[in-house]
Structure formats: C-alpha cells, structure tokens
C-alpha cells in the first residue's frame, strides 16, 4: 500500500504555475467557467438532492436522488458514501470508547463494569459481529440490516439501551456496534448503485460527469479513479490525489501539528490565487454561484477532512486535530452548508485520540440533532469522562 502511495506521488510532480493551479477538468472550474453545465446537471438529476447534499443533509439527498438513470444513481451513491463515512468514524470511536472504559474501570473501585460484556470491547468485535452474541436479540437486527441494507430496524432501537438493570443504580449499556453496522449498510447501498461489491471495483463512479465530483474532496474524475484504484480507505479518498498535489502543497510530516498548519496555509494561498484568477476569467454568473454556494470553502473543508482521516488512520491524533480545527468554520455553530457532520465526528475522534474525552463530547454535541442515534455513544463517552474524573478534585473559577 505504502509503495503504491509513493508511486502516485512521484508520477505527477508537475510544478505549479506562478498564477496558481490550472485544473480545467476540476468540478470547481466546470461550475464557475460554465454555469450552464451546472444548470444542466440540476435538470438531469433532482435539484432538491443537490440542495440537500450542499447543506450536508445526506439522508434527504439520498431519498431525493431517486430513479434508474445512472447519473442519478451515481449521485445517490455520493449521499450514501457521505453517511457511510460519518457512521464509520462514529463506529470505530464507540468501540475505542468501550475499550477505554473497560481498561479504566478495571483500575477503579468495584472492578470492571459487570454489566457490559468485556469481549465486545475487542478491536474488531463489531466489524464482523463474530463474537457479538452478547448483543442478544439485537444481533439478528444487525445481521438483517447488513444483508438487506435497510437501517430502519436498527435506528428504531438506537435510543433504547441494550440492557438496563435496576439495582443498585439504573445501569444502562448501549449497543456499541450500531454505527459500524450503519456504516456497512450505507456503504452497501452506495456500492449497489455503482454495481460493485468493493470500493476498489467501483471505478464506474469515475465514469460520471459532474455528478460524481460536485462538492467532493476529489477535484476531477481521473482524480477519483486514481484514488479508487489506490485502494485507500474510503474516508481518505483524495487525501493524496495527484490533482491536489498540483496545488503545490508541502509534503506531509507525520505527527507534526505545525507542519499540518503550514500545509493548510499553503492550501489557502493556492485556493486564493486560483479563485482570484477564476473570478477574473469566469463569467459573472459563475462568480455569483461561487459566492452563494461557497464552492472553494466547500472543497477546502472536504479535502481537509480526507487529509485528517488519513492522519487519524496513522494514529496521529494531534496532527489530525490541527487540520480539523483549521477546517472548521467557527462562525457556524451547527451542521449545515458551512460544517459537515464528518467534521464533528472526526473532531470527536481526534480529540479522543489526544486524551480529551470531555472536549470530544463538545464536538459530538452538534451531531445530536441531525443524528439522534448518537445518544448511545454520547452516554458512553460521558461515562468514560466521569470515570476518569472520579479521582480528581474539581476546580472552578470566575469568568
């Protein structure tokens, strides 16, 4: 895998021109230079779907992209892919929280929490549901959902704890595998629309026109195809794509937050010069589209999310945290056009990785409205925070 990644890098070391990148194939240039293509896309595929996808409301987008036409199915795959990524991050976070909770409670008075089965805290317990019999009747719901790719059954039970014993206190324990299964469901739905069984075979996705790339982290179709072929994890698609290399970004220094911030600044400069050039060359209508939809800001955030996922997969929490804090639009408080739900999920995962459970809870808070099923993860993360705080004396100050 690593060799392939390096090959990718060497293959396309084209030096960026002084006046900023020229990527005529990219969806940014396509929309801004020829607004007509964008309008045509909105005619070909349902408009509400793209409005919802722009507003990061992937579930409405998925339902809106309804129809046999391959372009619509590719668009629907985009929505399913987004939801898959959110649940994938939340799923792995929930398992890590479960594991940390068991190791911490073992050190505390009263021993490990007898209620929650320890083996479920194993690293891949939820991945293949092999040893998950402790889930009891939930297990069948999981298996059914994964086969039929229908999450409704699972979602209904999401807010009810798996087990609640009355004495001594109401001990509740939530199903840690919920998000992993939901991720499987949505990935399956996306692959069905792309007539593939694994992401590396889903190169049909790259055959599409604008619908495969609009608002995405990958800039153009060849970018998408190369990333798919590189068999990278779906979350980090486009993190290493050649097109973005053309933006002249410095190489990654693993684990160094300051280098990551320098990378973000380089990205900002490249995007600024590119946007200013486009603003001059592109028709007025294109420029207004960019202004209203914030296309450059959208690409910036999506790419940084992919880049942060790559850092997280390599276990570099502080590096990912630097990227995510730079990716966040602090003026918008909740999930919306300015901030993707993936940002908050990744922010929670990165903060948890950096030992900041309480701040991870802060990051999950905006997700509780669009993803009510996150209740289980938030309660368990709350348990862990309280557990680690039991041996501490509180400190409070004014202002």
């Amino acid at each position, binding site marked *: 895998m690593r060799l392939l990644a390096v090959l990718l890098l060497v293959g396309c070391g084209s030096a960026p021109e002084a006046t900023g990148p020229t990527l005529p194939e990219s969806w940014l240039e396509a929309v801004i230079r020829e607004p007509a293509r964008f309008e045509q896309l909105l005619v070909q595929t349902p408009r509400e779907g793209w409005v919802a996808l722009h507003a990061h409301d992937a579930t409405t987008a998925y339902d809106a992209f309804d129809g046999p036409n391959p372009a619509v199915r590719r668009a629907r795959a985009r929505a399913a892919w987004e939801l898959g990524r959110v649940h994938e991050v939340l799923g792995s976070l929930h398992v890590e929280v479960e594991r940390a909770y068991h190791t911490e409670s073992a050190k505390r008075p009263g021993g490990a929490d007898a209620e929650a089965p320890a083996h479920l805290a194993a690293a891949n317990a939820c991945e293949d549901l092999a040893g998950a019999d402790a889930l009891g009747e939930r297990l069948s719901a999981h298996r059914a959902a994964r086969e039929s790719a229908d999450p409704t059954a699972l979602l209904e039970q999401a807010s009810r704890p798996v087990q609640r014993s009355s004495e001594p206190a109401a001990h509740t324990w939530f199903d840690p595998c919920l998000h992993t299964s939901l991720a499987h469901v949505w990935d399956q739905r996306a692959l069905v629309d792309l007539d593939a069984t694994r992401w590396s075979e889903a190169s049909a996705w790259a055959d599409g026109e604008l619908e495969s790339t609009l608002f995405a982290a990958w800039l153009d179709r060849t970018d998408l195809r190369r990333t798919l072929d590189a068999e990278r994890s779906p979350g980090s698609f486009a993190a290493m794509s050649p097109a973005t290399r053309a933006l002249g970004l410095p190489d990654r220094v693993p684990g160094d937050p300051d280098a990551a911030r320098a990378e973000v600044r380089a990205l900002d400069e490249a995007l600024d010069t590119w946007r200013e050039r486009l603003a001059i060359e592109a028709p007025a209508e294109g420029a207004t589209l960019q202004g209203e939809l914030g296309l450059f800001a959208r690409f910036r955030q999506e790419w940084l999310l992919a880049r942060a996922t790559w850092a997280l997969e390599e276990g570099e929490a502080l590096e990912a945290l630097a990227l995510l804090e730079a990716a966040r639009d602090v003026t918008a408080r909740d999930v919306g056009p300015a901030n993707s739900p993936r940002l908050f999920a990744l922010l929670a995962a990165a903060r948890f990785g950096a030992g900041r459970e309480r701040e991870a809870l802060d990051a999950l808070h905006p997700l509780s409205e669009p993803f009510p099923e996150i209740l289980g993860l938030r309660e368990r993360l709350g348990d862990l925070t309280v557990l680690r705080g039991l041996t501490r004396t509180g*400190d409070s100050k004014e202002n």
Partner: protein
Amino acid sequence: MRRHLMPWMLGGALLLAGATTAEPLRYAEDRAPPIVNPLFTTTMSEARLAELVFEGLFTDDAKLSSTPRLATGLDLAEDRMSAVVRLKPGVTWQDGESFTAEDVAFTVAAMKEESTASTERGRVQFIQEVEVIDDLTVKLTFEREEYAPEDKLHFKVLPAHRFEGTAVKRSDAFRTQPIGTGPYRVKRFNDDNSITLAKFDQYHDSTRIDEITMREVADKNYQSKLLLYESLEALVRVLPRDLATLQADRKVELYPYQTNSWWYVGFQNNRAPFDDERVREALTLLVDIDALLAPIGTGEVVSGPFVTSSPYYNHEVKRPKPDARKAAELLTAAGFAKSGDYWSRDGKPLTLKLTAQENLETAQDVVIALQSQLQSQGIKVEPTFLGTAEWKAKVWRERDFDAVLSQWSFDRSEDVTEQFHSEGKFNFGHYANAEVDALLDQAKDTSDPQAKKALLREVHAKVADDHPMIFLWTLDSYSAISRRVRKVVIHPFYFFTWSREWELK
C-alpha cells in the same frame, strides 16, 4: 534656540525603560489579576498566571493524565489510606532557596487553615495529615481510600520561608512579590496594569520563550485590533463577534477554549424580596434570554448549572420561555401590585440592584439590555459596576448584593458543589436545599459513573426548579494566537500548562 531644545528634551528625558532584548510573548486579558497568590485565586486570569509562576507536585501531560512535576514518584500504601511522595532534588525557588518537603507541608496546612479562608481549601480536603520524613520525602495520610492520589496533587506548592505562619492574610506582601518554582518569575508590576514575567534562569526544566507580558485591555474590540496590528501574540478569550475577522486573517490561529463556562444572574436568596421563590421565578419569566444574548454573540442557552454538552446536563429540563402572564400571577401572589408602571409592594417599587464587574464590556452590554427589558416590564433595575478589589470584597466576602451578573468556569470534573451546596465556599447567594446537599454528597462519594451522572442530573432539575439564579448561556469561546508562536498546545482549563514547549519565531 527654544525650538531646537524641544526634540532633545522630549527624546532624552522622557524615554523611560530601555529597549528589551528578547522578544516577549504578549497576551491580553480582560482584567489584570489583582492578587498573584494561589491561596486566594478566584478568577481564571489568576489561575492562568499562577500556571506560569507556580507548580504542583503533579501536573497534566499532553494526554491529560497525571505526570510528576515537583515530585518524582508516589508509593501508595497497601490499604490505600496513605502514600509516600518522593520529591525532585535540585529544585530551587525563584529567590534562590531550595525546594524541600517543608514547603509541601506548609502549603497543605495554609490551605486547610481556617483563618486563611483559602479558596483552594476544597482541593486539599482529602489529605488528613502531612508528615515530613526527610528533605525530599513526605508522607500523606488520607481521609478515605484513594485510588489515584496523584490526580489530586496538582495544587500549587508555596515557599514556606516567605510566610510567617500558616494563617496568611489577603494583603500579605507575597501578593506583590510572588515566588514560585515555575518557569517564569514576576519581573515587574507595571502601572498600566500589565505584568512582565521573565524566564527563571535556575528553572529545573527547560522553557523556550524568554519573556511573557500580560496586558490588561478591557476594550474587547481593541483587543482583536491589537492582535491584527501584531502588538499582541495571544488573546485568551475572543468575542464571538470577532471570530469571522480573525478566522479570515492569515496571521492568526484559532484554538477552542470553552472551559465549560456559563453566565448567570445570581440572586441573594436570603434578602427580601428575593428570598421569595415566586419573585425569583417571576423575574426569570420576564427576561427574554435570546434578546440578551444577541448583542454579545453566539452561544447556547442553558437551563441549569451545566453546559449543554456536559454528561451531567439534564435535557428533560427545558429552558424557561418568557411568560409575562405567569410572571404577573406570581408577583401578585407574592403581594406585589402594579401601580403606575412599576410593580410595588407596600409603597416600595420592586427594585433589582444588579452588581456587575467594571469595564468588562460584555457584562456592561448584558446589564444595559437586562435593565431595558425589565424596565419595560415594570421592574426597576439599578446597575452598579465594581472594580476587581471591590467586587471581591462586596460579592465574595460580604455577599452584599441583590443580584450579580457573572460567569463560572469549570475544569473537566464540572464539580458544582462549591456553588450549590449550602456550605459551598462560592455559594454567594446563600442557596440552601437539603435534597440538593444530599445529592451532591452522594455524587462526591460514589464510584459508579452512571450513578454520578444520574445524581447530578437530578441536581440540575432541582436547582432549576428552585430558581436561585437566572441561568443564561454558554458562549462560543476561542482563543486566538499569532502563527509566530509554534508548537502551541492549550490546556482546556489552565491554558499555559504546556507553555514550556511553545516557541516564538
């Protein structure tokens, strides 16, 4: 001749301090800390400054778990009722004296001393007795079984040789020449309320920035201007209004710094007419909190003493909606009648003397908006703004107020016992509810996290129901740091804990 004389005179005689050699890190605070003495720390700005000058036996590492600082290790006894702490050799105080076990014993005694009335007493409650074994070893005996005592030994250690006895007075001379073992010593208290800290040469560890200057800039929008002018390197709290400009600026990096803080209007519960709960509830129902929040920025309204993302926040307790009709019922039930345009009882109009901190801009806006709202509802509001010293005297010690507007900040354990327990040291409004006391005590002793969550959510519900305060909101709070400062990692509460690693290019 006279003209020629002028420039020389101006330049020569009046230029005071020489140019400083090293480039200092300059950070701004709304209020300069009046007292630099960890025994009496009451505000966040004091806690942040103490982090630079003083150290504890243990401190937080980058993953927020305890790591030795002045201690080298700790051996917990078999029965978990006592522990022997070994201290780091070769550590000197900033006045050259050497750090010994005597200092640890003195600090704990000073904090526990009744007459000192230290605000940090709650943090050493768990230690029953401190015994000095030799210069570098001390034995702590605990009140109860302790599982990770190092988590509770983060309080700042003070130099015994700088005090006469363990009964320390607030006006003790230590406040103006603080001596710690930390990376920076206080070089100068300047007259424009700024404090210059210089690197402590014999520090037992390394630190990269030579000088840190704390400047008091009360005017919030001048603060963010100064950062853009590059006259400051760091702003501890940025107003939500300035987030957009600072986020777009390429020279500044934004770091979240929430400190679990929430704003409140706290009533004096044992002073008529605010001892009557109906009056307090009526006032709560007359206030439109969203309209109060709008001028100062974005945040989230809370319905109780926790921030909404806290594990202890009770989401069943809904935030109060303005309801003038119910408020009128409650006031009439409490014996008030609306004569003319003011509610009054036996001739006296219902007046709320609202006390707030002086030249704290956001507080001033909230007070003005609150007065305008209540005035239009028939309640007279008389705002008084106090300076820091007066605020401490009037609010903390004499508790002489009708209502205060302020903000509490909490670390990760969000322990509200000091604020709402009837014997809590920070319970200025004399709130007392036996059930809440019982719940808080149980929550302190339990070792089951889920039980603690349930207990404190119950506290949330009960306190919200008693209306000792109008719970306002938690603001989106960020700190902005210039990009010339490298390797920046901020502690979620004490901010400067890892400033040793920061570098200034």
